């Protein structure tokens, strides 16, 4: 068990009103934002469970939109997310799904499109205290918290990719804390999620992309 820090108790510093419905929701969208290669132009949010029932009074919608624009949980601009998104020409919609029962109570599905038309779809859960986890990226089940420095590699499910990834990390002197590989079907797309100790250099992205089987690389530093 991770020890409890004084800043877990006196903190987090956050835009209110709710750690789960505001700060945690923002964190899911921020993770989605970090998985995109270009700024968002159009985004659709589907809210489930308690999110769907109380999102308005908790400002969940503003927080989600703020996260998609890269705002941190303590960014005072969150209150004005709608206006700022309008000014940036971002189109957004919110839908509620109160019929689906088989989901964590604070779940959101985000479908985001960048200016080149590339779509990223994630499902995330706000798990309390302002913390969140991604449970799905583009239809593939994952488990990403973004608490440690994280590399997300989208790859083809072929032999040698993991060897390449670990070799690159070794050459950069990075110690791997956790390594998980997720896939849906054999020989199709897969994701490697590496959580590391210490900082990840931006140069790592290009290095990892050196082989054709690596399709996309994102560093998630929250």
């Amino acid at each position, binding site marked *: 068990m991770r020890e409890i820090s*004084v800043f877990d108790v*006196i903190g987090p510093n*956050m*835009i209110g009103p709710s750690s789960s419905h505001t700060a945690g929701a923002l964190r899911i969208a921020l993770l989605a934002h970090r998985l995109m290669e270009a700024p968002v132009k159009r985004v659709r949010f589907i809210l489930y469970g308690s999110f769907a*029932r*109380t999102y308005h009074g908790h400002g969940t919608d503003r927080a989600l939109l703020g996260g998609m624009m890269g705002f941190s949980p303590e960014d*005072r601009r969150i209150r004005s997310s709608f206006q700022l998104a309008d000014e940036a020409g971002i189109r957004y919609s919110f839908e509620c799904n109160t019929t689906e029962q088989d989901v964590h109570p604070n779940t959101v599905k985000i479908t985001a499109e960048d200016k080149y038309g590339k779509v990223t779809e994630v499902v995330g859960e706000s798990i309390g*205290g302002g913390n969140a986890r991604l449970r799905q990226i583009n239809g593939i089940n994952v488990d990403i918290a973004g608490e440690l420095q994280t590399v997300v590699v989208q790859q083809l499910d072929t032999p040698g990719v993991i060897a390449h990834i670990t070799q690159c990390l070794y050459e950069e002197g990075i110690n791997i804390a956790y390594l998980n590989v997720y896939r849906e079907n054999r020989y199709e797309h897969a994701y490697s999620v590496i959580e590391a100790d210490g900082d990840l250099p931006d140069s790592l992205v290009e290095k990892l992309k050196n082989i054709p089987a690596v399709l996309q690389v994102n560093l998630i530093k929250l």
Partner: protein
Amino acid sequence: MNNFTNGAELLALCRETGLPISEVMLQREEKYFEGTREEIRNRMAHSWEIMKESVEEGQMEGNRSMGGLIGGEGHKISERRRSTEPLVGKTVSKAMAYAMGVLEVNASMGLIVAAPTAGSSGVIPGVFCAVQEEFGFSDEKMVSALFTAGAIGYLITRNATVAGAEGGCQAEIGAASAMASGAVCELFGASPEEVLSAASSVLGTMLGLVCDPIGGLVEAPCQKRNATGASNALVCAEMTLAGVRNLIPFDEMVEVMYKVGRSLPYELRETALGGIAASRTACELCGKNCLKNDGGINL
């Protein structure tokens, strides 16, 4: 410095080292987490700045909550204090006004420090700012006292809960009030034993308080309970400084609070299905305000 996992171990460490709780907590942070002593203190000083800003912002007239249930109450309490001698004395009047104001800031999507939660975020800033203004403690002293508050909150989190969904309001605002009370006692020179005794008194006096937010929103009755949580912190600190000890030790009281919390029915643990939230008027208010955008598509 060893870790401590309950109040008894914390007091043993204080006795061994001759240090106050704030210092033991700071050294624990240094040992188990990243950052130098100075960095950790600076980070806490930043939290203190945010708290003070949230108190100031909460005293404005125009705050309006997202759910529309609260706004302007903190300002009203302060207006009365400025126009006449407050019934409860200046310190309590300030503490309650500030605590209520911070809840307005929180409910209108302003920046707060969740201490320990967003729903209880008014208590510590309210008490701390009132005490600093009335008794002239330096910012450095207030930052140290936040570590004392943090130690109490850490022990309650570790051995019970500070979540309303798990333990009701007694766990959430109860913890905030216990944290504030113990911290104030240390500011006034109380011993570590007295600090935990004050925290224990708070938990005992708020025992059983349910979590029943109207419309599931962090507005009402949360805002008033932040005010009573803040004043209760001062009442229990006053008792302690006068030499009135709590009969039940802190660790036992944390366990008692946890057991009571777990035995609260589901309806009274943040689900908005019972208590005040289920009253006829609350349901009418919900229909009008909080859930007006429930369902459907919003573009």
